Protein backbone atom coordinates (compact mmCIF):
# COMPACT_ATOMS: atom_id res chain seq x y z
CA UNK A 1 0.00 0.00 0.00
CA UNK A 2 1.48 3.33 -1.08
CA UNK A 3 0.70 6.12 1.37
CA UNK A 4 0.00 9.55 -0.12
CA UNK A 5 2.61 12.18 0.68
CA UNK A 6 1.78 15.47 2.40
CA UNK A 7 1.39 18.37 0.02
CA UNK A 8 4.46 20.26 1.30
CA UNK A 9 6.53 17.09 0.79
CA UNK A 10 5.28 16.74 -2.79
CA UNK A 11 5.91 20.40 -3.65
CA UNK A 12 9.39 20.51 -2.15
CA UNK A 13 10.24 17.11 -3.72
CA UNK A 14 9.65 18.37 -7.26
CA UNK A 15 11.23 21.80 -6.81
CA UNK A 16 14.33 20.14 -5.39
CA UNK A 17 14.25 17.44 -8.10
CA UNK A 18 14.24 20.10 -10.85
CA UNK A 19 16.96 22.01 -9.04
CA UNK A 20 19.14 18.90 -8.61
CA UNK A 21 18.77 18.01 -12.29
CA UNK A 22 19.83 21.54 -13.30
CA UNK A 23 22.66 21.58 -10.76
CA UNK A 24 23.92 18.23 -12.10
CA UNK A 25 23.95 19.31 -15.75
CA UNK A 26 25.55 22.70 -15.07
CA UNK A 27 27.92 21.24 -12.47
CA UNK A 28 29.11 18.73 -15.05
CA UNK A 29 29.61 21.54 -17.57
CA UNK A 30 31.67 23.50 -15.01
CA UNK A 31 33.78 20.40 -14.32
CA UNK A 32 34.31 19.90 -18.08
CA UNK A 33 35.99 23.34 -18.22
CA UNK A 34 38.66 22.22 -15.74
CA UNK A 35 38.45 18.43 -15.40
CA UNK A 36 41.26 18.24 -12.83
CA UNK A 37 40.77 17.80 -9.10
CA UNK A 38 43.26 18.72 -6.37
CA UNK A 39 43.71 18.78 -2.60
CA UNK A 40 44.60 21.90 -0.62
CA UNK A 41 44.21 25.61 -1.37
CA UNK A 42 45.55 25.84 -4.91
CA UNK A 43 45.83 23.70 -8.03
CA UNK A 44 46.06 24.47 -11.73
CA UNK A 45 47.38 23.21 -15.07
CA UNK A 46 50.96 23.84 -13.92
CA UNK A 47 50.64 21.81 -10.70
CA UNK A 48 50.02 18.06 -10.25
CA UNK A 49 46.42 16.87 -10.13
CA UNK A 50 44.86 14.33 -7.79
CA UNK A 51 42.44 13.10 -10.48
CA UNK A 52 42.12 13.98 -14.18
CA UNK A 53 38.80 13.22 -15.84
CA UNK A 54 38.63 12.59 -19.62
CA UNK A 55 35.34 14.47 -20.05
CA UNK A 56 36.16 17.31 -22.43
CA UNK A 57 38.79 18.48 -24.88
CA UNK A 58 40.41 20.33 -21.96
CA UNK A 59 41.59 16.95 -20.60
CA UNK A 60 45.42 17.05 -20.68
CA UNK A 61 45.34 19.62 -23.48
CA UNK A 62 48.90 20.77 -22.79
CA UNK A 63 48.42 24.04 -24.68
CA UNK A 64 50.98 26.13 -22.81
CA UNK A 65 54.24 27.86 -23.62
CA UNK A 66 57.30 26.37 -21.86
CA UNK A 67 57.16 27.32 -18.15
CA UNK A 68 59.40 30.13 -16.92
CA UNK A 69 60.37 30.81 -13.29
CA UNK A 70 57.97 33.17 -11.52
CA UNK A 71 60.55 34.37 -9.02
CA UNK A 72 64.31 34.58 -8.69
CA UNK A 73 64.35 31.03 -7.34
CA UNK A 74 64.42 28.97 -10.55
CA UNK A 75 63.35 25.78 -8.76
CA UNK A 76 60.22 27.49 -7.43
CA UNK A 77 56.85 28.29 -8.94
CA UNK A 78 56.56 28.86 -12.68
CA UNK A 79 54.35 30.70 -15.10
CA UNK A 80 53.25 29.68 -18.60
CA UNK A 81 50.94 31.23 -21.17
CA UNK A 82 47.99 29.27 -22.42
CA UNK A 83 47.97 28.90 -26.20
CA UNK A 84 44.96 26.59 -26.47
CA UNK A 85 41.31 27.55 -27.01
CA UNK A 86 39.64 25.63 -24.20
CA UNK A 87 36.03 24.44 -23.94
CA UNK A 88 34.28 26.97 -21.67
CA UNK A 89 30.52 27.54 -21.33
CA UNK A 90 30.75 28.89 -17.79
CA UNK A 91 29.18 32.21 -18.81
CA UNK A 92 25.76 30.55 -18.55
CA UNK A 93 26.87 27.37 -16.75
CA UNK A 94 27.94 29.06 -13.55
CA UNK A 95 25.03 31.52 -13.40
CA UNK A 96 22.48 28.74 -14.02
CA UNK A 97 24.20 26.60 -11.37
CA UNK A 98 23.82 29.34 -8.77
CA UNK A 99 20.25 30.18 -9.85
CA UNK A 100 19.35 26.49 -9.42
CA UNK A 101 21.21 26.59 -6.10
CA UNK A 102 18.67 29.11 -4.79
CA UNK A 103 15.93 26.60 -5.67
CA UNK A 104 17.74 23.97 -3.61
CA UNK A 105 18.61 26.13 -0.61
CA UNK A 106 15.34 28.02 -0.08
CA UNK A 107 12.90 25.07 -0.42
CA UNK A 108 15.51 22.87 1.32
CA UNK A 109 15.59 25.09 4.40
CA UNK A 110 11.77 25.33 4.41
CA UNK A 111 11.57 21.52 4.07
CA UNK A 112 14.00 21.00 6.96
CA UNK A 113 12.09 23.41 9.22
CA UNK A 114 8.66 21.93 8.46
CA UNK A 115 9.97 18.37 8.69
CA UNK A 116 11.43 19.09 12.10
CA UNK A 117 8.38 20.90 13.50
CA UNK A 118 5.83 18.60 11.88
CA UNK A 119 7.42 15.36 13.12
CA UNK A 120 7.86 14.06 9.55
CA UNK A 121 11.55 13.36 10.14
CA UNK A 122 10.96 11.67 13.51
CA UNK A 123 8.09 9.55 12.18
CA UNK A 124 9.14 8.70 8.62
CA UNK A 125 12.77 9.59 7.85
CA UNK A 126 14.97 9.21 10.95
CA UNK A 127 16.31 5.63 11.01
CA UNK A 128 14.40 3.90 13.78
CA UNK A 129 13.16 0.33 13.49
CA UNK A 130 9.60 1.25 14.57
CA UNK A 131 7.00 1.80 11.88
CA UNK A 132 4.71 4.71 12.67
CA UNK A 133 1.22 4.23 11.25
CA UNK A 134 -0.27 6.89 9.03
CA UNK A 135 2.76 7.88 6.94
CA UNK A 136 4.92 6.31 4.25
CA UNK A 137 6.14 2.94 5.50
CA UNK A 138 9.87 3.06 4.83
CA UNK A 139 12.12 0.22 5.92
CA UNK A 140 15.31 0.81 7.86
CA UNK A 141 17.54 0.85 4.79
CA UNK A 142 15.32 3.42 3.07
CA UNK A 143 15.36 5.59 6.19
CA UNK A 144 19.14 5.39 6.39
CA UNK A 145 19.43 6.37 2.70
CA UNK A 146 16.97 9.28 2.99
CA UNK A 147 18.59 10.50 6.22
CA UNK A 148 22.04 10.44 4.63
CA UNK A 149 20.78 12.51 1.70
CA UNK A 150 18.69 15.00 3.69
CA UNK A 151 20.91 15.53 6.72
CA UNK A 152 24.40 14.86 5.37
CA UNK A 153 24.89 14.91 1.59
CA UNK A 154 22.62 17.82 0.61
CA UNK A 155 23.91 20.18 3.36
CA UNK A 156 27.48 19.11 2.53
CA UNK A 157 26.93 19.99 -1.15
CA UNK A 158 25.69 23.46 -0.22
CA UNK A 159 28.47 24.10 2.30
CA UNK A 160 31.32 22.86 0.07
CA UNK A 161 29.78 24.90 -2.75
CA UNK A 162 29.82 28.03 -0.59
CA UNK A 163 33.42 27.24 0.39
CA UNK A 164 34.31 27.82 -3.27
CA UNK A 165 32.83 31.35 -3.12
CA UNK A 166 35.58 33.91 -2.37
CA UNK A 167 33.17 36.45 -0.83
CA UNK A 168 31.72 33.77 1.46
CA UNK A 169 35.08 32.48 2.68
CA UNK A 170 36.24 36.06 3.29
CA UNK A 171 33.36 36.25 5.78
CA UNK A 172 33.78 32.68 7.09
CA UNK A 173 37.46 31.66 6.70
CA UNK A 174 36.78 28.71 9.01
CA UNK A 175 35.14 26.97 6.03
CA UNK A 176 38.51 26.77 4.27
CA UNK A 177 40.10 25.23 7.36
CA UNK A 178 37.28 22.72 7.84
CA UNK A 179 37.53 21.33 4.31
CA UNK A 180 41.29 21.76 3.90
CA UNK A 181 41.21 24.54 1.32
CA UNK A 182 39.36 25.74 -1.76
CA UNK A 183 40.46 22.85 -3.99
CA UNK A 184 39.71 20.26 -1.31
CA UNK A 185 36.18 21.66 -1.00
CA UNK A 186 35.84 21.40 -4.79
CA UNK A 187 36.99 17.76 -4.74
CA UNK A 188 34.59 16.90 -1.88
CA UNK A 189 31.80 18.70 -3.79
CA UNK A 190 32.46 16.34 -6.72
CA UNK A 191 32.71 13.20 -4.53
CA UNK A 192 29.38 13.94 -2.84
CA UNK A 193 27.86 14.63 -6.27
CA UNK A 194 28.87 11.10 -7.34
CA UNK A 195 27.29 9.67 -4.17
CA UNK A 196 24.08 11.64 -4.78
CA UNK A 197 24.00 10.53 -8.42
CA UNK A 198 24.14 6.89 -7.26
CA UNK A 199 21.35 7.62 -4.79
CA UNK A 200 19.15 9.17 -7.48
CA UNK A 201 19.71 6.21 -9.81
CA UNK A 202 18.87 3.78 -6.98
CA UNK A 203 15.85 5.89 -5.99
CA UNK A 204 14.40 5.90 -9.52
CA UNK A 205 15.04 2.15 -9.96
CA UNK A 206 13.27 1.41 -6.65
CA UNK A 207 10.34 3.61 -7.62
CA UNK A 208 10.07 1.79 -10.95
CA UNK A 209 10.27 -1.64 -9.32
CA UNK A 210 7.61 -0.86 -6.73
CA UNK A 211 5.00 0.42 -9.20
CA UNK A 212 6.16 3.46 -11.13
CA UNK A 213 2.77 5.09 -11.92
CA UNK A 214 1.35 4.38 -8.48
CA UNK A 215 4.43 5.94 -6.83
CA UNK A 216 4.32 8.88 -9.23
CA UNK A 217 0.66 9.53 -8.34
CA UNK A 218 1.54 9.41 -4.63
CA UNK A 219 4.27 12.05 -5.10
CA UNK A 220 2.29 14.31 -7.51
CA UNK A 221 -1.48 14.35 -6.92
CA UNK A 222 -1.07 12.69 -3.52
CA UNK A 223 -3.25 9.62 -4.11
Amino acid at each position, binding site marked *: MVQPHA*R*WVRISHWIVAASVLTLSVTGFE*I*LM*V*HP*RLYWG*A*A*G*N*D*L*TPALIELPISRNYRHGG*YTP*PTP*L*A*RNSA*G*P*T*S*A*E*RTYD*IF*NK*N*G*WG*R*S*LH*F*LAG*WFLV*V*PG*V*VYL*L*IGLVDGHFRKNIWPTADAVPGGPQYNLRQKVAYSCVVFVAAPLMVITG*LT*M*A*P*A*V*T*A*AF*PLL*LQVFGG*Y*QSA*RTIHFAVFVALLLFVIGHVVMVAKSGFWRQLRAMTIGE
Partner: protein
Amino acid sequence: MKLKSRLVTRRGAIAAGLASVGGFALWRSPKDLPPTYGSLLRMGDNLTYAAHRALLPRQALVTEYTDKDITSFPAIGTTNPAASGPPDRANAYRRMQGGSFADWRLPIEGLVAKPRTFSLAELKQLPSRTQITRHTCEEGWSAIAQWTGVTLGTILDAAGILPAARFVLLHSYDGFANSIDMLDALHPQTIVAYGMNGQDLSVPHGAPLRLRVERQLGYKGLKYLQRITVVNEFDDGGEQGDLANGWAWYTGI
Protein backbone atom coordinates in the same frame (compact mmCIF):
# COMPACT_ATOMS: atom_id res chain seq x y z
CA MET B 1 -9.99 20.66 9.07
CA LYS B 2 -7.11 20.93 11.42
CA LEU B 3 -4.77 19.54 8.76
CA LYS B 4 -6.01 22.05 6.22
CA SER B 5 -5.48 25.07 8.45
CA ARG B 6 -1.94 23.88 9.15
CA LEU B 7 -1.27 23.57 5.45
CA VAL B 8 -2.23 27.18 4.96
CA THR B 9 0.19 28.17 7.70
CA ARG B 10 2.96 26.21 6.02
CA ARG B 11 2.24 27.79 2.71
CA GLY B 12 2.32 31.12 4.49
CA ALA B 13 5.71 30.21 5.90
CA ILE B 14 7.00 29.28 2.45
CA ALA B 15 5.66 32.53 0.98
CA ALA B 16 7.27 34.50 3.79
CA GLY B 17 10.58 32.74 3.16
CA LEU B 18 10.50 33.48 -0.55
CA ALA B 19 9.40 37.06 0.07
CA SER B 20 12.30 37.66 2.43
CA VAL B 21 14.75 36.38 -0.18
CA GLY B 22 13.08 38.61 -2.77
CA GLY B 23 13.39 41.41 -0.25
CA PHE B 24 17.17 41.18 -0.43
CA ALA B 25 16.94 41.88 -4.13
CA LEU B 26 14.74 44.93 -3.52
CA TRP B 27 16.81 46.08 -0.57
CA ARG B 28 19.20 47.73 -2.98
CA SER B 29 17.59 50.26 -5.24
CA PRO B 30 17.36 49.08 -8.87
CA LYS B 31 19.90 51.76 -9.75
CA ASP B 32 22.48 49.87 -7.70
CA LEU B 33 21.92 46.57 -9.50
CA PRO B 34 23.30 45.57 -12.89
CA PRO B 35 20.69 45.37 -15.67
CA THR B 36 19.28 41.89 -16.40
CA TYR B 37 17.93 42.51 -19.93
CA GLY B 38 15.15 40.09 -18.94
CA SER B 39 17.60 37.21 -18.53
CA LEU B 40 16.73 34.77 -15.74
CA LEU B 41 20.44 34.02 -15.31
CA ARG B 42 21.27 37.68 -14.70
CA MET B 43 18.32 37.91 -12.26
CA GLY B 44 19.83 35.00 -10.35
CA ASP B 45 23.22 36.77 -10.36
CA ASN B 46 21.57 39.88 -8.94
CA LEU B 47 19.83 37.86 -6.23
CA THR B 48 23.20 36.39 -5.20
CA TYR B 49 24.83 39.84 -5.30
CA ALA B 50 22.09 41.44 -3.20
CA ALA B 51 22.11 38.53 -0.74
CA HIS B 52 25.90 38.79 -0.34
CA ARG B 53 25.71 42.53 0.24
CA ALA B 54 22.84 42.14 2.71
CA LEU B 55 24.12 39.12 4.65
CA LEU B 56 27.93 39.13 4.59
CA PRO B 57 30.16 41.42 6.68
CA ARG B 58 31.00 44.33 4.43
CA GLN B 59 34.74 44.58 5.02
CA ALA B 60 35.67 40.95 5.74
CA LEU B 61 39.21 40.17 4.62
CA VAL B 62 40.18 37.15 2.53
CA THR B 63 42.69 34.66 3.91
CA GLU B 64 46.29 35.72 3.29
CA TYR B 65 48.93 33.04 2.80
CA THR B 66 52.66 32.79 3.42
CA ASP B 67 55.71 32.73 1.11
CA LYS B 68 55.85 28.95 1.10
CA ASP B 69 52.24 28.72 -0.16
CA ILE B 70 53.05 30.51 -3.44
CA THR B 71 52.31 28.28 -6.45
CA SER B 72 52.80 28.18 -10.18
CA PHE B 73 50.44 30.50 -12.01
CA PRO B 74 49.07 30.05 -15.54
CA ALA B 75 48.61 33.21 -17.62
CA ILE B 76 45.36 32.97 -19.56
CA GLY B 77 43.10 35.26 -21.57
CA THR B 78 45.17 38.08 -23.05
CA THR B 79 48.85 37.39 -22.53
CA ASN B 80 50.15 40.26 -24.68
CA PRO B 81 47.92 43.23 -25.64
CA ALA B 82 50.49 44.35 -28.24
CA ALA B 83 49.66 41.19 -30.19
CA SER B 84 45.92 40.83 -29.60
CA GLY B 85 44.44 44.15 -28.40
CA PRO B 86 42.39 46.54 -30.56
CA PRO B 87 44.88 48.11 -33.09
CA ASP B 88 45.08 51.62 -31.55
CA ARG B 89 45.57 50.31 -28.02
CA ALA B 90 47.90 47.52 -29.22
CA ASN B 91 50.15 50.11 -30.88
CA ALA B 92 50.12 52.35 -27.82
CA TYR B 93 50.91 49.38 -25.60
CA ARG B 94 53.79 48.25 -27.82
CA ARG B 95 55.33 51.75 -27.70
CA MET B 96 55.09 51.94 -23.90
CA GLN B 97 56.41 48.41 -23.49
CA GLY B 98 59.48 49.41 -25.52
CA GLY B 99 60.16 52.15 -22.96
CA SER B 100 59.61 49.91 -19.91
CA PHE B 101 56.28 51.68 -19.35
CA ALA B 102 57.98 54.99 -18.41
CA ASP B 103 55.45 56.73 -20.71
CA TRP B 104 52.46 54.83 -19.34
CA ARG B 105 49.90 57.03 -17.54
CA LEU B 106 46.81 55.99 -15.62
CA PRO B 107 44.02 58.63 -15.73
CA ILE B 108 41.50 58.78 -12.86
CA GLU B 109 38.42 60.55 -14.18
CA GLY B 110 34.66 60.85 -13.76
CA LEU B 111 33.15 61.70 -10.39
CA VAL B 112 36.33 62.92 -8.74
CA ALA B 113 37.14 66.42 -7.50
CA LYS B 114 40.63 66.46 -9.06
CA PRO B 115 40.86 64.29 -12.18
CA ARG B 116 44.51 63.36 -12.63
CA THR B 117 46.92 60.81 -13.99
CA PHE B 118 49.49 58.60 -12.31
CA SER B 119 52.77 57.43 -13.77
CA LEU B 120 54.18 54.09 -12.62
CA ALA B 121 56.86 55.96 -10.64
CA GLU B 122 54.19 58.07 -8.90
CA LEU B 123 52.20 54.97 -7.97
CA LYS B 124 55.32 53.35 -6.53
CA GLN B 125 55.84 56.40 -4.29
CA LEU B 126 52.41 55.98 -2.67
CA PRO B 127 52.05 53.80 0.46
CA SER B 128 52.23 50.21 -0.79
CA ARG B 129 50.47 47.06 0.25
CA THR B 130 51.81 43.53 -0.25
CA GLN B 131 49.51 40.54 0.10
CA ILE B 132 49.77 36.82 -0.64
CA THR B 133 46.35 35.74 -1.81
CA ARG B 134 44.55 33.03 -3.72
CA HIS B 135 43.51 33.73 -7.30
CA THR B 136 40.33 31.79 -8.03
CA CYS B 137 39.49 31.32 -11.71
CA GLU B 138 35.92 30.76 -12.92
CA GLU B 139 37.31 27.73 -14.77
CA GLY B 140 37.92 25.93 -11.47
CA TRP B 141 41.66 26.29 -10.90
CA SER B 142 43.39 28.41 -8.29
CA ALA B 143 46.88 29.77 -7.71
CA ILE B 144 48.60 31.68 -4.92
CA ALA B 145 50.88 34.65 -5.53
CA GLN B 146 52.26 37.67 -3.74
CA TRP B 147 50.94 40.98 -5.06
CA THR B 148 52.39 44.42 -4.38
CA GLY B 149 50.61 47.65 -5.22
CA VAL B 150 48.51 50.51 -3.96
CA THR B 151 45.00 50.14 -2.61
CA LEU B 152 42.44 51.41 -5.09
CA GLY B 153 41.05 53.47 -2.20
CA THR B 154 44.36 55.35 -1.93
CA ILE B 155 44.36 56.49 -5.55
CA LEU B 156 40.63 57.28 -5.51
CA ASP B 157 41.21 59.40 -2.39
CA ALA B 158 44.12 61.16 -4.09
CA ALA B 159 41.74 62.18 -6.87
CA GLY B 160 39.06 63.23 -4.36
CA ILE B 161 36.18 60.83 -4.82
CA LEU B 162 32.75 62.56 -4.81
CA PRO B 163 29.79 61.43 -2.65
CA ALA B 164 27.67 60.49 -5.69
CA ALA B 165 30.19 57.78 -6.68
CA ARG B 166 28.56 54.34 -7.02
CA PHE B 167 30.82 52.22 -9.22
CA VAL B 168 34.41 52.22 -10.41
CA LEU B 169 34.81 51.43 -14.12
CA LEU B 170 38.16 50.25 -15.48
CA HIS B 171 39.36 49.93 -19.06
CA SER B 172 42.35 47.94 -20.25
CA TYR B 173 44.79 47.89 -23.16
CA ASP B 174 43.57 44.47 -24.30
CA GLY B 175 40.13 45.88 -25.12
CA PHE B 176 38.24 44.72 -22.05
CA ALA B 177 36.48 46.69 -19.35
CA ASN B 178 35.11 45.87 -15.95
CA SER B 179 33.47 47.55 -13.01
CA ILE B 180 33.05 46.98 -9.28
CA ASP B 181 30.86 48.61 -6.66
CA MET B 182 32.25 51.08 -4.11
CA LEU B 183 32.25 48.42 -1.39
CA ASP B 184 34.75 46.29 -3.29
CA ALA B 185 36.56 49.36 -4.68
CA LEU B 186 37.31 50.64 -1.15
CA HIS B 187 37.98 47.18 0.33
CA PRO B 188 41.40 47.17 2.05
CA GLN B 189 42.63 44.25 -0.10
CA THR B 190 41.49 45.69 -3.43
CA ILE B 191 44.73 46.93 -4.95
CA VAL B 192 46.15 47.98 -8.27
CA ALA B 193 49.25 45.80 -8.40
CA TYR B 194 52.56 46.58 -10.11
CA GLY B 195 54.49 43.72 -8.49
CA MET B 196 54.07 39.96 -8.43
CA ASN B 197 56.22 37.65 -6.28
CA GLY B 198 58.69 40.48 -5.62
CA GLN B 199 59.27 41.40 -9.27
CA ASP B 200 57.67 43.88 -11.65
CA LEU B 201 54.45 42.51 -13.07
CA SER B 202 55.24 40.57 -16.27
CA VAL B 203 53.39 41.17 -19.54
CA PRO B 204 51.46 37.85 -19.43
CA HIS B 205 50.17 38.75 -15.95
CA GLY B 206 49.09 42.30 -16.78
CA ALA B 207 52.05 44.72 -16.93
CA PRO B 208 52.39 47.44 -15.93
CA LEU B 209 49.35 47.48 -13.63
CA ARG B 210 46.47 45.14 -12.90
CA LEU B 211 43.55 45.14 -10.51
CA ARG B 212 43.14 42.61 -7.68
CA VAL B 213 39.60 42.18 -6.33
CA GLU B 214 40.24 39.46 -3.80
CA ARG B 215 36.63 38.74 -2.83
CA GLN B 216 35.67 38.01 -6.42
CA LEU B 217 36.87 35.66 -9.14
CA GLY B 218 40.03 36.16 -11.15
CA TYR B 219 38.37 37.72 -14.18
CA LYS B 220 37.35 40.77 -12.16
CA GLY B 221 41.07 41.53 -11.72
CA LEU B 222 41.48 43.39 -15.00
CA LYS B 223 45.00 43.32 -16.44
CA TYR B 224 46.83 46.06 -18.46
CA LEU B 225 44.93 48.96 -16.85
CA GLN B 226 44.38 51.88 -19.22
CA ARG B 227 42.08 54.22 -17.27
CA ILE B 228 39.82 54.37 -14.24
CA THR B 229 36.47 56.17 -14.27
CA VAL B 230 34.28 56.79 -11.23
CA VAL B 231 30.57 56.68 -12.16
CA ASN B 232 27.24 57.17 -10.39
CA GLU B 233 25.24 54.70 -12.46
CA PHE B 234 25.90 51.08 -13.33
CA ASP B 235 28.35 50.86 -16.22
CA ASP B 236 30.53 47.83 -16.94
CA GLY B 237 32.04 49.17 -20.13
CA GLY B 238 29.28 48.21 -22.56
CA GLU B 239 30.51 45.93 -25.32
CA GLN B 240 33.86 45.52 -23.56
CA GLY B 241 32.24 44.49 -20.28
CA ASP B 242 31.21 41.26 -18.56
CA LEU B 243 27.47 41.39 -19.29
CA ALA B 244 27.73 42.00 -23.04
CA ASN B 245 30.16 39.09 -23.24
CA GLY B 246 27.73 36.76 -21.45
CA TRP B 247 29.39 36.70 -18.03
CA ALA B 248 28.13 37.47 -14.55
CA TRP B 249 29.11 40.93 -13.35
CA TYR B 250 29.27 40.00 -9.67
CA THR B 251 31.50 37.00 -8.99
CA GLY B 252 31.77 36.70 -5.23
CA ILE B 253 30.53 33.13 -5.74
